[in-house]
């Protein structure tokens, strides 16, 4: 299996996910030598990329000589396990992956895909970035975002609460409050 030295060393995984989309600009940005060096410098040991329908193949690496170990796959039925084992998540702007990551309390950088038309999902990522629940980047600015990032400044996302909405529905339908 893996190198003995790698196994005993504490793993710090960066997990990249593009969901069911095609987002080569992100995968290419991640695959750049400078960005991988920066991640290494920040103490991350592994990089795992879920690349979806993209055609750009990142360079795999076993991570010998202390550099970042890089691996990738296209799809999996559930990325929950990958998210759970990650120390940092870099995701496309899909609301599904955003909330799944925030619920697990993992630091998150959302990278918006500027190739998509009518990109309303950008709104959500920007709003959550303004509220300091995540960091927001574009493929060209991702390297800078990672260099400058201070994960301590991120705030946990509060648990969702459907009761205000449910109360209004009950009231409208004339259900007694109990």
């Amino acid at each position, binding site marked *: 299996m893996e190198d003995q030295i790698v196994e005993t060393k504490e793993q710090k995984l960066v997990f990249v996910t593009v969901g069911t989309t095609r987002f080569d600009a992100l995968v290419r940005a991640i695959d750049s030598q400078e960005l991988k060096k920066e991640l290494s410098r920040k103490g991350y040991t592994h990089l795992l990329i879920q690349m979806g329908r993209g055609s750009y193949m990142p360079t795999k690496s076993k991570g010998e000589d202390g550099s970042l170990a890089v691996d990738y796959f296209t799809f999996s039925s559930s990325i929950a396990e990958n998210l759970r084992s990650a120390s940092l998540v870099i995701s496309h702007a*899909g*609301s*599904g992956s955003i*909330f799944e990551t925030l619920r697990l309390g993992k630091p998150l950088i959302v990278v918006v895909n500027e190739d998509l038309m009518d990109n*309303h*999902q950008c*709104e*959500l990522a*920007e*709003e959550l970035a303004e509220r300091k629940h995540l960091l927001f980047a574009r493929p060209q600015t991702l390297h800078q975002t990672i260099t400058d990032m201070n994960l301590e400044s991120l705030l946990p996302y*509060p648990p*969702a*609460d*459907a*009761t*205000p*909405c*449910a109360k*209004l*529905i*009950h*009231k*409208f*339908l*004339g*259900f007694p409050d109990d």
Partner: protein
Amino acid sequence: MASFTFLLAIFIIAITAFIIRAFYVILQSGKPLERTDAKPLSTLVVLGSGGHTAEMLNLLSALHKNRLMPRFYVAAATDSMSLIKARVLENSLNEKSGIPVGETAKFIQIYRSREVGQSYMTSIGTTLIAIAHAFLIMIRLRPHVILCDGPGTCIPLCIIAFLFKVLGIRWSSIFYIESIARVKRLSLSGFLLYELKIADQFFVQWPQLQRKYARAQYVGCLM
């Protein structure tokens, strides 16, 4: 000639009556129900892919399930995941209450008018099929309550429900919850149901949207 005039008169009277009734329905929509009995209300839950379904199921877990039943879950025929997730929720409710799922919930697939990437020409035909299918479903179910949070499939269903109100077939309460992904602008479904005043209650999950759409109510995040 006389019979033509007669038919025309009938036609004009019918159209006028319909329009007056439609205005009355719009005026009455948005007013809370005044109910004297405590009978449960049949509920149509429109599910969409991914995020939409997660938000809807979060809302459902906070609602009075024993007052909102039976529950009819509708999802696009190409979206099997949503109905599976709804079934998981219903199974867990069933474990607590002991009532078989078949009595409290039904799961229905509906044709979608347009798949992502489908050409506009072929989508005319598929839209007609989707509307006909929505009609059949609505005639069969005639729900008292409709909950939807954004997928395009809710548009034909809600318009048919509105027609039922106008024609006196069934008075339903339509609740629309705009998805959490919509922060600054409404989705097309939301915009239509808001502007056409088809939704009795319109909920948004961000305060800045509420400021733009005065009849919307801000309810905080469902996700």
